[in-house]
C-alpha cells in the first residue's frame, strides 16, 4: 500500500484542506463528470485531467503560465472610488498595477441607479479619458430586479410567480426588459459622446432570461450605432435561469442556455468580448471546481470568434468564495484556464 503525502489545497470557500494527489485527481474527475452530466458537455480527457492534477497537486505558493503566454486581464471595477477619487483609482490601476484595461463605474453598479446620473458619469468618463492611456470602458450590471416593485415601476415577478400568476409575471418582466434596453442604449449614447472605448454589461442574466435578452438587444443596437464602441458581455452564472421561460433571441430560447450557446448569441448580437461564468461550489475542493469550470467553458473556445474572458474571482471560475482570494488559488485557476482552454483573457 502506497502512503501518499498530503498537499495543502483549498475548498471552494477558501479554507485549507490537505489532500493526497489521488484525492485531488478523484475530485478533478468528479467535477468533470458533474459538468458532463448537468450540461451534456464532454468530460475532460485523461490528458487534461492529468494536466490539471499537475497544477493543483503542487504545494507551490504561487504558479504561473510560461513566459510569452501571458493573457489580457480585464480588470473590472477599477475606477469605483476604492482609495481615492475614481480617476485617481484608474490611474493607480494603470500606473502602479499595470492593468491591461480600465473600467469606470459606480459602487452600486446597477443600471437603474446609473440612469439617473448619466450626465455626471459621462463627464467623469470625459475627464478620465484625458488622464489615462489604457483602454477605458464603462461598466454596469443590468440588474433587472431593480425595475420591479418596490424599487421600480414594474410588478414584482418574484412575488407573482409563487402565487402562480405566470402571465402577469411574464408581462412584468417584458415591461422591465423594454425599459432596461432603453436605459442601456441611453447610457451608451452618453458614454460614447464622452469618449468611452467600450461598455461592459457585467453579471448579465442575474435576473434570468429577460435580463440576458435586454443585454443582447441593447448590444445589437449599440454596435450598429457605434461600430467603434466595444461591448463586453459578462455573465452572472453558468446557466440562464428561466424566470420568464419563453423569451427568445434570434429564434433561440434563452432559458437554460449554457456558456457555448450564450457565447454564440453574444457574437450574433455584435459583442466584442464575452465573459462566461461558472459558479463555485463552496463545499467542494478547488480541484473539483476547476475541472467543472474547464469542462463547461471548453465548448465555448471551439466556436469563439471574439475574445473569451472567463470570470475568475470571488466565487467564480474556481476562485474561492471569499473577499480576499488567496494568490495560490487565483494563480492556479488562471494557469489552468490559459493552458487548457487557451482563453483570450480573464
Amino acid at each position, binding site marked *: 500500500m502506497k502512503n501518499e503525502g498530503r498537499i495543502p489545497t483549498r475548498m471552494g470557500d477558501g479554507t485549507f484542506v490537505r489532500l493526497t494527489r489521488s484525492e485531488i485527481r478523484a475530485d478533478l474527475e468528479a467535477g468533470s463528470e458533474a459538468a458532463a452530466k448537468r450540461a451534456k458537455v464532454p468530460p475532460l480527457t485523461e490528458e487534461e485531467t492529468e494536466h490539471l492534477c499537475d497544477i493543483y497537486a503542487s504545494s507551490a505558493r504561487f504558479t504561473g503560465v510560461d513566459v510569452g503566454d501571458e493573457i489580457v486581464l480585464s480588470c473590472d471595477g477599477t475606477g469605483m472610488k476604492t482609495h481615492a477619487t475614481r480617476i485617481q483609482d484608474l490611474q493607480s490601476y494603470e500606473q502602479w498595477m499595470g492593468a491591461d484595461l480600465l473600467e469606470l463605474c459606480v459602487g452600486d453598479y446597477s443600471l437603474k441607479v446609473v440612469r439617473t446620473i448619466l450626465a455626471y458619469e459621462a463627464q467623469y468618463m470625459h475627464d478620465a479619458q484625458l488622464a489615462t492611456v489604457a483602454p477605458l470602458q464603462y461598466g454596469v450590471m443590468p440588474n433587472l430586479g431593480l425595475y420591479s416593485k418596490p424599487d421600480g415601476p414594474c410588478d414584482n415577478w418574484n412575488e407573482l410567480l409563487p402565487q402562480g400568476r405566470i402571465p402577469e409575471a411574464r408581462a412584468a418582466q417584458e415591461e422591465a426588459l423594454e425599459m432596461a434596453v432603453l436605459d442601456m442604449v441611453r447610457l451608451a449614447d452618453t458614454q460614447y459622446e464622452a469618449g468611452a472605448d*467600450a461598455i461592459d454589461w457585467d453579471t448579465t442574466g442575474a435576473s434570468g432570461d429577460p435580463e440576458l435578452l435586454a443585454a443582447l438587444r441593447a448590444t445589437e443596437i449599440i454596435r450598429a450605432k457605434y461600430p467603434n464602441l466595444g461591448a463586453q458581455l459578462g455573465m452572472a452564472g453558468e446557466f440562464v435561469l428561466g424566470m420568464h421561460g419563453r423569451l427568445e433571441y434570434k429564434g433561440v430560447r434563452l432559458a437554460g442556455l449554457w456558456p457555448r450557446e450564450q457565447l454564440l448569441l453574444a457574437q450574433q448580437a455584435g459583442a466584442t468580448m464575452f465573459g462566461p461564468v461558472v459558479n463555485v461550489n463552496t463545499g467542494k475542493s478547488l480541484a473539483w471546481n476547476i475541472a467543472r469550470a474547464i469542462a463547461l467553458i471548453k465548448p465555448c473556445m471551439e466556436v469563439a470568434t471574439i475574445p473569451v474572458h472567463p470570470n475568475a474571482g470571488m466565487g467564480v471560475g474556481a476562485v474561492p468564495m471569499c473577499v480576499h482570494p488567496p494568490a495560490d488559488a487565483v494563480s492556479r485557476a488562471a494557469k489552468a484556464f490559459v493552458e487548457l482552454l487557451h482563453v483570450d483573457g480573464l
Partner: protein
Amino acid sequence: MGGIRAAGDLVARMQMTRGMRLREAKEYVAAKLGVTPFDLSDPVVMTEVRNEHGFGRIHSYAISQPWQANQIEAKFNIARVLDVPINCVEKFGERTAASR
C-alpha cells in the same frame, strides 16, 4: 500582460474595440510595432518601444519623462501607429484645433 509596463493595454484595446482574439490581437500589435508577439509582455523591450512611439509609460518622480507623450497625447500616437480609431482621440480632434 502588464498593461502600460509592456503592451497589455495595446493588445487589450484590439480585443475590446475590434473584437480580436488574443493571438490575432498580439500578432496585429506586434506587426505594427516591428516586434514579436513574445516581446509584447516584456517590459524591458516594450519600454524602449513605448518611448520610441510616444505611447506613454509608468511615470513617477523617480522616473519622470515630462518630455514624452502621455495620457491623451499618447493615445493620439497609439491610434496612428496601430491604425485604429480611438473614440476619445476622435472626439478630442472634433472639439479642439488638434485635427485642423
